[in-house]
């Protein structure tokens, strides 16, 4: 969420899920919403049925396309060009919100400079989107009263992910679709507590509440609160850099809590090498995941139903979840395991309950200061920032000013996908999720009804491509990239454009991340899952 933080000073969804009921227009890009966020997807569909407009920017014919007033199917990885093209038209035709730009933003001249280079005919060449569609899109978005822009990993999982996000933010600021109900820039977070893991400082550069580790005052504050002499004042390694350091032998030990990087991360064979190269690997999980199989020690963890605690959803709403049953066998809640381990390692942690831990979070994290278990138990959650126990929470961010004061236009130039198809690897592979499964499938693949509906990985391929290669529905094909090969069944469908194939990473039988490129965005360090070059052959 680095892109949004740079633009607005805060990196979360600016508006709320309930706002989806009131918007006049949705611009949805890089989000297969009905699959990844079904309940938000259905709100969009209901709003469209009552008259709201839907503008979709996505290379695939995703289910939402059926409801779209306009669907731009750009070439993979050309998002910045398309968004610049739309802004070019908005500025050219003076459709932008002059008052908002003048009073709330800075850097408009720089934006104009860059965007000028992206007139519709240039963008059409890069992205394959017709000029007249770009013009229509620009008019629709700029002229709407309340327009909500929503995106997901189709925007962030590129080597240009941060640029994509900044471009979305530029567009919303240019048109003044920010700081009011049913507007805003809304990243839809993929997992139940991604937002919370970030908020709590599960990042190499910040403590909880995004307080930077390189800030002397923040460091001092946490040293005092935690009673330690000297905290590390240098930014740590991102997951991508951890894997590189492990391969080089500089990283010796890795402790993984509730994650499965061996399935979820790109270029799996490199990750496997990196993990094997460690002296010591600990995995704490509910299941013996692909990663846990490699571990020196595996610690059995409780599921969500077996412990108490809070989760923060994509709209910054912190909700309390209760304990229904006890964990199986000797499994324990993660927080208890951490307390014991830390105590054994010489730093005692004596918390009596998650509510007790939350008190410490309240004390050191300004945006969570007023979010206590007591308050949460009586209601339906609180949206941060919530600076004190009287505060009702914040459904809309950046109302009168941005977290950082003025919003900054950070214009970006278009850069192509790091690994473009060539003569040998002539297809572009893009990856995503399907409705019936979740992430690496450790949980959903153990649910029978979901397995029944979607028991195996499929490779989506366009009918014309399939015909050329003599591939029929359900034929087994081999997909090969410069990093590995995977076999799976073909599904012939016009959901994908020609020369593009699509699959998911839910299935360990067809670990699609063996193929994906670990080339990553230089700032956010998010790998390019959404585009890499592959070749395809039918297996006989």
């Amino acid at each position, binding site marked *: 969420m680095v892109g949004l933080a740079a633009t607005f000073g805060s990196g979360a969804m600016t508006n709320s899920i309930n706002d989806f009921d009131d918007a006049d227009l949705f611009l949805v890009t890089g989000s297969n919403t009905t699959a990844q966020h079904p309940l938000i997807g259905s709100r969009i569909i209901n709003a469209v049925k009552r008259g709201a407009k839907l503008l979709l920017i996505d290379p695939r014919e995703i289910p939402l396309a059926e409801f779209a007033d306009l669907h731009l199917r750009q070439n993979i990885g050309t998002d910045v060009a398309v968004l610049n093209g739309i802004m070019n038209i908005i500025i050219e035709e003076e459709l932008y919100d002059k008052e908002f730009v003048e009073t709330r933003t800075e850097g408009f001249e720089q934006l104009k400079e860059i965007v000028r280079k992206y007139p519709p005919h240039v963008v059409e060449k890069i992205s394959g989107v017709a000029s007249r569609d770009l013009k229509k899109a620009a008019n629709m978005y700029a002229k709407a009263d309340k327009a909500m822009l929503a995106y997901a990993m189709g925007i962030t999982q590129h080597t240009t992910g941060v640029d994509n996000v900044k471009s979305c933010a530029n567009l919303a600021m240019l048109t003044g679709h920010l700081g009011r109900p049913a507007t805003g820039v809304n990243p839809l977070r993929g997992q139940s507590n991604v937002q919370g893991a970030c908020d709590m400082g599960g990042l190499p550069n910040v403590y909880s509440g995004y307080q930077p580790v390189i800030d002397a005052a923040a460091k001092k504050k946490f040293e005092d609160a935690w009673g330690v002499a000297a905290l590390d004042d240098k930014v740590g390694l991102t997951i991508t850099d951890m894997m590189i350091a492990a391969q080089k032998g500089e990283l010796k030990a890795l402790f*993984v809590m509730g994650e499965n990087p061996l399935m979820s991360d790109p270029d799996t064979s490199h990750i496997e090498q990196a993990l094997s190269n460690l002296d010591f690997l600990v995995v704490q999980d509910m299941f013996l995941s692909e990663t846990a199989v490699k571990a020196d020690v595996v610690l059995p963890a409780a599921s969500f139903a077996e412990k108490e605690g809070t989760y923060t959803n994509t709209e910054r709403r912190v909700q309390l979840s209760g304990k229904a049953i006890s964990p199986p066998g000797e499994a324990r809640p993660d927080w208890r395991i951490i307390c014991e381990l830390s105590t054994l390692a010489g730093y005692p942690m004596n918390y009596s309950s998650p509510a007790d831990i939350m008190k410490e979070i309240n004390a050191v994290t300004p945006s969570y200061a007023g979010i206590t278990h007591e308050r949460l138990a009586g209601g339906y959650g609180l949206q941060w920032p919530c600076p004190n126990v009287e505060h009702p929470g914040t459904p809309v961010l950046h109302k009168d000013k941005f977290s950082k004061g003025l919003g900054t236009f950070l214009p970006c130039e278009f850069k192509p996908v790091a690994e473009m198809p060539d003569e040998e690897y002539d297809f572009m592979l893009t990856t995503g999720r399907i409705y019936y499964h979740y992430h690496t499938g450790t949980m959903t693949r153990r649910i029978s009804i979901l397995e029944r509906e979607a028991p195996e990985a499929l490779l989506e391929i366009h009918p014309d491509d399939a015909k050329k290669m003599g591939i029929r529905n359900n034929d087994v094909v081999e997909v090969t990239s410069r990093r590995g090969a995977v076999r799976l069944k073909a599904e012939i469908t016009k959901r994908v454009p020609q020369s593009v194939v699509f699959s998911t990473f839910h299935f360990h039988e067809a670990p699609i991340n063996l193929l994906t490129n670990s080339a990553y965005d230089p700032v956010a360090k998010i790998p390019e899952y959404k585009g890499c070059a592959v070749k395809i052959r039918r297996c006989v």
Partner: protein
Amino acid sequence: MTRTRTVCPFCGCGCSFYLLSERDRVTGIEPSPSNPVNKGMLCVKGWNAHEFIHSPERLTKPLIRKHGEQVESTWDEALKLVADRLLDIKKQFGPRALAFLASAKVTNEENYLFMKMARATFGTNNVDHCARL
């Protein structure tokens, strides 16, 4: 039968539902009718979220690798081993030779403690999570 209000463990919508349980078994799910996020609805994943909880494949004991095999152990042995090995490596190679991956699936309280452990107990800022996904 007991009803316990929980949050769906899957996507970032954060739908809320009640787990119905009897004698330490979850028997069903009932969406929260008044929660502003899902207003009584759930998707197919949420409706079936309880099933994996009782999967026979759940881990029930710590495992330790001995002579190449992962074998069951006690908590005391496993935790002692983890603490000793991490402290050893820290002593020999410095705190930056250790790294910690937090989780987008566990609670806020747990993620907070986890990053506190990385930073305060073991002295490293090498903490990240897989949600760059």
